[in-house]
Each structure stands twice: as structure tokens, then as C-alpha cells.
């Protein structure tokens, strides 16, 4: 009789797997819906926040211009100019209409986010695209490298939690993690860049070079990228190390680990299939969360190392109150972060069978 009951239970497990597959699809669709909604919400919030900043950007802009050129202010001409600009930028329309137009252009007009105030008629989209490779290059590479290194180091430190070396590593990682990115960057610039002169301390590549596909240029590019990336990696990597260590230690206390050891599996198998594999799941989620939180650090690094990325673009635009450009930078950052998070979240069911059920 028991056998019958269990046989039926077995069948239901198989049915469960088909249902599981359906649920993965549902999960993916739902996750994509959330992604679109978040994107829309972010665009909307960014739009209104920048519109609601007190002061008319046009006035500030023209004031800057005329003062810079030291000319007598010609009231009439100035007003005509402002009126002209306001028309171009559609700023006389009521706010809701501006918003609808903005959305329409952004979605249907191929990410048309309007022209830059300052570099009119240059499109903010083009400004952003020109700068984006730098930010993506530095940011993505350093975060991914930091994640890889941090995950492996953290796993080892957690696995060997009782050894002296592990305890030392925890202290060092904690110190590094709480240090602000700009201090690490400044430290590297001062010591490695200027005092010891081991690596270039700033700029995208050596000044006398032109961007071209030569070994000289590429190697200059790479050596210039080391310190900015290292600044980012040290701080983020320390965080990932500590996070993975904590995850490992909590997994090591799980009953299935005791059981794996009781079976007599080799320590390497226990580490690989039972401890690391399980700790990895939340660590992947951590990657998605950290991605958003560390982008601003990358912007600071770009400014400190004088790299022509989105961060420097944003700071320049801020100085000139070029709201359209600032807004475009913010939107593209949000877009990039949300997309990375989406990719990570969609990858999770591959790692964790339980999500296929519960999500």
C-alpha cells in the first residue's frame, strides 16, 4: 500500500517539473514587466525632478554667457533669444504635454532625449553615447572582476574561517570596505602615480597619442585604466569578499553540509557542490544590488582620473546647468543598472531550482 502512495507522489513530482517550467516562463515575463515599469517610473521621476528645480535654466545660461563675454546686457535681444530657446526646447508647453512629448520622443524617436542646452544643437543622446564606452568599460569590468575575485576569496576565507590568515583577511577587507572610494583613488594617485611613478595617474591615454589600433595606443589605454579600475575593485571587492564569507559561514552551518561530510565526500567536493554552489545564489543577487550602489563611485573615479566618461560629462553639465544632458546621463545610468539587474535576476532560476517554484 505504501508503495502505491509513493508511486503517485512520484508522478506528481514529474508533473511538478512541467509546472516548474511554466513557472519559470511566468517568472521571466513578470520580471520583464517589473523591469519596464521601473524604467518608466525612473524616467518619469527624473523628468519631473529636473523640471521642478527652481530657476529657469535659460536665464542662468544666458546670464553666464553674457557675463563671460563681458558685454553690456541687451535686454531686448536677450529676451528674444530666451523666447527662441524656450520654443526650441518646448518649455512653454504645459508640463504634462512636455512630459508626454518627452516620453514619445524617448520611446518612439529612438531614445531621443532632446538636444543639449549648452552644446545645442548637439543631441544629449550623442553626448552620452560618446562617453558611455569609458564608463561601461571601467565600471563593468571592475565590478565584474571585483565580484569574481571577491567571491572566490570570500569563499576561501569562509571555508577556512578558523585560520589566522582568514581572520586577518577579514580585518583587512573590513577596513578597505569602509574606506570611501575617493580616498582609495587619491591614495593610489598620490603614491603609485606620483611618488613611485609606477603607473599613470590620470587621463585616458598618453597625451601625445591619437586613438588608433596600434599596440602603443592600446597599451597606453590599458595602463591608464589600471589605477581607476583598481580603486573601484579594492572597495567593491572587499565588500563582495565579506559578503561571500558571511554566506559561506551560514551555509557551513546547514544540515546538508553535515550530511555531505558524513557521507565521506572529499573536502573539495563538499566545498564545490555543497557550500560554494549554495552560497553563490545570494551572492549573485548581491551583484545585482551592488551594481546600482557603486555607479556613483565610478563617476567620482572618472572625475579624479580625468577620464571622459559619463561621470565627467555629468559634472561638466552640472556646472553649466545643462539639465537636459544631466537628465540623459541619469536616465542612461538607470537604464544600464536596471538592465544588468534584469539579466542577473533572469539568470537566478538557472542556479536555484526553488525560485522556479516560489517566485
Amino acid at each position, binding site marked *: 500500500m*505504501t*508503495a502505491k502512495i*509513493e*508511486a503517485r*507522489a*512520484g*508522478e506528481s*513530482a*514529474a508533473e*511538478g*517539473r512541467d509546472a516548474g517550467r511554466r513557472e519559470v516562463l511566468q517568472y521571466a515575463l513578470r520580471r520583464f514587466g517589473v523591469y519596464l515599469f521601473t524604467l518608466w517610473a525612473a524616467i518619469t521621476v527624473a523628468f519631473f525632478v529636473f523640471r521642478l528645480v527652481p530657476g529657469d535654466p535659460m536665464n542662468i545660461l544666458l546670464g553666464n554667457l553674457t557675463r563671460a563675454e563681458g558685454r553690456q546686457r541687451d535686454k531686448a535681444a536677450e529676451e528674444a533669444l530666451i523666447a527662441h530657446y524656450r520654443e526650441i526646447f518646448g518649455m512653454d508647453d504645459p508640463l504634462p504635454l512636455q512630459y508626454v512629448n518627452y516620453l514619445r520622443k524617448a520611446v518612439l524617436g529612438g531614445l531621443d532625449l532632446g538636444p543639449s542646452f549648452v552644446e545645442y544643437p548637439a543631441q544629449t543622446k550623442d553626448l552620452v553615447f560618446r562617453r558611455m564606452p569609458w564608463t561601461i568599460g571601467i565600471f563593468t569590468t571592475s565590478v565584474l572582476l571585483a565580484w569574481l575575485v571577491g567571491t572566490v576569496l570570500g569563499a576561501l576565507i569562509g571555508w577556512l574561517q*578558523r585560520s589566522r590568515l582568514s581572520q586577518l583577511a577579514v580585518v583587512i577587507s573590513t577596513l578597505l570596505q569602509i574606506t570611501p572610494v575617493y580616498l582609495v583613488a587619491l591614495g593610489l594617485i598620490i603614491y603609485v602615480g606620483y611618488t613611485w611613478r609606477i603607473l599613470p595617474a590620470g587621463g585616458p591615454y598618453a597625451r601625445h597619442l591619437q586613438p588608433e589600433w596600434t599596440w602603443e595606443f592600446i597599451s597606453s589605454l590599458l595602463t591608464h585604466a589600471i589605477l581607476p579600475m583598481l580603486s573601484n575593485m579594492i572597495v567593491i571587492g572587499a565588500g563582495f569578499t565579506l559578503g561571500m564569507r558571511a554566506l559561506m559561514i551560514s551555509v557551513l552551518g*546547514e*544540515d*546538508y553540509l*553535515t*550530511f*555531505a*561530510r*558524513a*557521507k*565521506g*565526500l*572529499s573536502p573539495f*567536493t563538499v566545498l564545490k*557542490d*555543497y557550500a560554494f*554552489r*549554495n552560497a553563490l*545564489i545570494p551572492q549573485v543577487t548581491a551583484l545585482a544590488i551592488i551594481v546600482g550602489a557603486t555607479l556613483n563611485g565610478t563617476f567620482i573615479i572618472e572625475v579624479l582620473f580625468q577620464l571622459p566618461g559619463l561621470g565627467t560629462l555629468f559634472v561638466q553639465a552640472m556646472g553649466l546647468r545643462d539639465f537636459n544632458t544631466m537628465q540623459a546621463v541619469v536616465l542612461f545610468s538607470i537604464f544600464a543598472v536596471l538592465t544588468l539587474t534584469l539579466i542577473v535576476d533572469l539568470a537566478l532560476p538557472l*542556479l*536555484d*531550482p*526553488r525560485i522556479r*517554484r516560489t517566485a
Partner: protein
Amino acid sequence: MPALLEIRGLSAGLQGRRSITQVVSHVDLDVQRGEILGVVGESGCGKSTLATAIMRLLVPPQVLQSGSMTLRLKDGKSYELLDLPEADLRQLRWRHLSYIPQGSMNSLNPVLRIERQMTDILIQHGLTREEALKRSIAALELVNLEPRLLDSYPHELSGGMRQRVIIAAAVSMRPALIVADELTTALDVVTQRQILQELAGIRDELGATILIITHDMGVVAQIADRVAVMYAGKVAELGTVNGIFESPLHPYSQGLIGSIPREGGQRVEGLPGEAPSPWNYPAGCRFHSRCPHVIDRCRAEAPALLPQGEGRWAACHLYEPEVLSNA
């Protein structure tokens, strides 16, 4: 015939900042070939500590303090478990020595399929994938489970099924000794009964020896041949299940048997008070704070585990020759 496992003077404790708090004290126990030996006692009396010490799976702050354990296999080989290096121990595990830990419904890795978790160790012991699969399927049949369960993840199974998978995994290499800690505690009564029956069947079919650890005298009554009653880290009484249930010698055994729910549901005279924790084991006989028959000597002197005829042992001053003759 010598015992399959001979435990002598086994002590284990918890490493504190300055000193070790002893949890299990000088346990002497022979596990006979082919028997089901129950170890029974209240929660916190050190049953799991004893089981993990036997399996050499103590993790800090738990420490082994002293003792010896000899495992004698059928082929004549014998092993001093406490002296064995970790690598040799791994060779023994699962092949000769299986362990079903307490809370073992959570002992399956949630992100690996059952197949992987049953076969990985078989493959490590040198079986091919096909042989490993065949053995796993045969083991699943012993506990009335369908082979197709191999494709499942643990969360797709009920608690009883997971428990059976663990048992199947533990017996898949036909080990000489299976140590099972609180095997059925989290299960409903019907499932508990079925699983215990399957376990008894496995003993008969594979000729395995089973050390079953439980706080439930009912489990002991259903499945065990002999029982060791543990109190506060020591063996209080040892004997056949029939013998002890008919005439428990140690006052603690009497109390335990008295507190099994009888037909009709009412409990008969339970034990007063609470079991002491290792940090305040009483001096002398550790049971003296709760014992209805306590005498002066009990507070000063710990009773030794002494033979009381026909395979019965008890650790109580009441049964020591000079006390008996005074009475």
C-alpha cells in the same frame, strides 16, 4: 563474537573560553553485530553529541576529550576510529559507517537533484555512474520509493519522502553500521511507524547494525532489540528492550517508562523537574536532584555502570552489592 563497535570511556564536551564543559561522560557501550540498539534520553542529555562523536563529526566548539572506539568488520579488519586520520575515515564512511543526522529532512542540498546527492559518494568510492544509479534505485526500493524520484529536487518531496531518501542514501553501500539520530521525530505517527518498519526490514535484508537515537520510548519499543538509557551525558541503564520495559532498574528508566502515553491517553506519573544542562550537571549521581529514591551517598559519589545479570547494566547506588546487602 566480538562487538561490531566497542566504545570505551568516551567523553566529549564543549570548548569554552577557559575550560571544557563535559557533555558526554565516560560512555562504555558495545554495539553488537546485527542488532538495533536504541539510545534514549531526554532532550539535551547528549545523545546527538554521542552520535556525532562516534561518527567523528564533532565541530567546534564541540571537542572530543578521551576514549577509544574500535570498529570490527566482518572481514576481520578492525579500526581505531579515534586514531584514524581524516582521509582513512572518509574511506570508511558510507561504505561501512553511515550516519543519518538529526533533522535529516533538511539534510538534502536544496539546489542539487536527488540523483546527484545519492550517487556522488558512490562514484567517489569508485563505482561507475551506471552502477551508482543501479544501487541508488535498489536502495530507494528498500524504502518503497519510485526510481523516478531521482530526478526531483528536495523541495518537490514531502517530509516523509525526504526522510526515506536519506535512509536510502545511507544504506546504498550496505554499510555495517548505521547511526540514525531522531529519525522520525518530525513525522506524523503513521509515517513514523512505516519508516521504522522499513528500517527494521533493511536490518533483516542487509544484515546491517543500527544505532538509533531517540527521545521517544515508543520508538525504542517498536524497533530496538536493546536500549541504553542516557541521563545527563552518562549511560544510566543498559539492557534488552523487553527486560527494561518489564522491570526498569534505574529510577530514571522507571520514570521514562512511566511517562510514555498509555492507551487512553493519560500519562502515568511523569518525571518531576527538568534535565540539567552540561553547565550544571549535579555532583555525585547526576540524577539525584530528581530521584525519588535518593540516599545520602548519591550526592557525594557517582555510581558506576555495573552488571545486574543477564545482559543488564545499571548505574545506581541502590543496586550496588553493599547497599543491597544493607537493605
